[in-house]
């Protein structure tokens, strides 16, 4: 394809080479490189399913071009924790019933981490504001808010730098 080039994306701490055209979104590039933990929902910034951290700030990967993401630290949900060693947010979502079908969960947890990066002790309203760009069709949000509040307090207790 014309306008294609090889770029290096640093995903969850590892450099990955991919050849993509200039109009490829970061979301598409991530899924093409096997990072299907990043979900594709609306592709227009409404649902937050595609959220990833770029240099520790949550963004919608569907509204970002892959080329402009070179040289930045990209973190997906898999970069936060694993089934064996879950991140406090992942553990809280699991234990407090904050995930049902799970489709929104990767984006939801990334957005929650974005909130905590800014403010380790968010109030309920601050959590709501921080998650207002993420849609969930299953849970009704109450358990998600509980889980984020719980995880934030766990992280403060453990003194995690976030």
């Amino acid at each position: 394809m014309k306008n294609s080039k090889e770029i290096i994306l640093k995903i969850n701490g590892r450099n990955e080479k991919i050849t993509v055209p200039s109009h490829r979104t970061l979301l598409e590039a991530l899924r093409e490189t096997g990072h299907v933990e990043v979900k594709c929902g609306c592709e227009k910034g409404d649902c937050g399913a595609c959220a990833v951290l770029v240099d520790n700030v949550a963004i919608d990967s569907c509204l970002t071009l892959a080329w402009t993401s070179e040289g930045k630290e990209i973190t997906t949900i898999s970069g936060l924790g694993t089934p064996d060693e879950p991140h406090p947010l992942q553990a809280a979502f699991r234990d407090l019933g904050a995930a049902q079908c799970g489709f929104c969960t990767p984006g939801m947890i990334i957005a929650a981490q974005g909130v905590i990066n800014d403010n380790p002790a968010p109030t309920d309203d601050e959590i709501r504001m921080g998650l207002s760009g993420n849609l969930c069709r299953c849970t009704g949000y109450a358990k998600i808010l509980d889980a984020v509040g719980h995880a934030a307090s766990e992280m403060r207790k453990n003194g995690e730098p976030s």
Partner: protein
Amino acid sequence: MYGEFKLEMPQQLDEALALIAEDPAEVLSGGTNLMIELRARKLRPEQVVSLDALSELRGIEVDGNRITLGARTTISDILRCDDMAEFGPSLLDAANLFAGQMVRNMGTVGGNIACSSPAADLVPPLMSLDAEITLVSSKGTRKVALCDYYLSYKKDVRAPSEMITSVSWKKLAKNSSNSFYKLARRIGDAITVTGVAVTLTMDGDRCTTARIALGAVAPTVFRATNAEKILEGQILTDDLITTAAQQAKAQSSPISDVRASAEYRLHTVGKLTHRLLTQARDKLV
């Protein structure tokens, strides 16, 4: 998903200006509007010029009496600025109710102004602060008052070879009150139905300056200058505020769409102007 285009990622402003001077291009800032228009094929540019690397365009600066936001300053940057409640209370009000976290982290002030949408939420606040924007091309620089920037629906005075580099305004005078109200279908992540920004400056019980900027009730954001004139130089009685609110309504020309009817927008623009003016007066007198 998107049509193909040549993507340029200049490292310097001069380079970016040269690129948009040579060939028609769409400037890409946060991408929260442009990417959606590209995807919907509403725009099919040959060339897209990303401002991503131009960190010089991002930041909030205070120089004496003047506050300047670089065009790439994000909505989240506004929220993180400790002094914004003093510098631009209405702008903080707008940023607080703007989109969701990810869009706030990406979306920029320059993009909000340049998209020329009547529902762009930062524009009524900035207009109520008498903001001025800086337009730069490879040929030179000019300043335009934000209230003179828009011509008609999605049309503005910016030439294709020009870029917005910053927006600035003077600190609020003593005895001023400045606020913004966003009416939408819900609080989080919703497009504005009616937006009202008001600034009042008082000398004793007399109003010296009034600014009323209205969003989403006409083809562009605009200042209700007839209403402002009614208030300036006067003692702000309830009757006078009612007359001014009626004038704001009379100057509006809303449309009906999926979010609200024209009738509802007219009703609410009158009510909200009345409410914000009354609150501002009661705070100051």
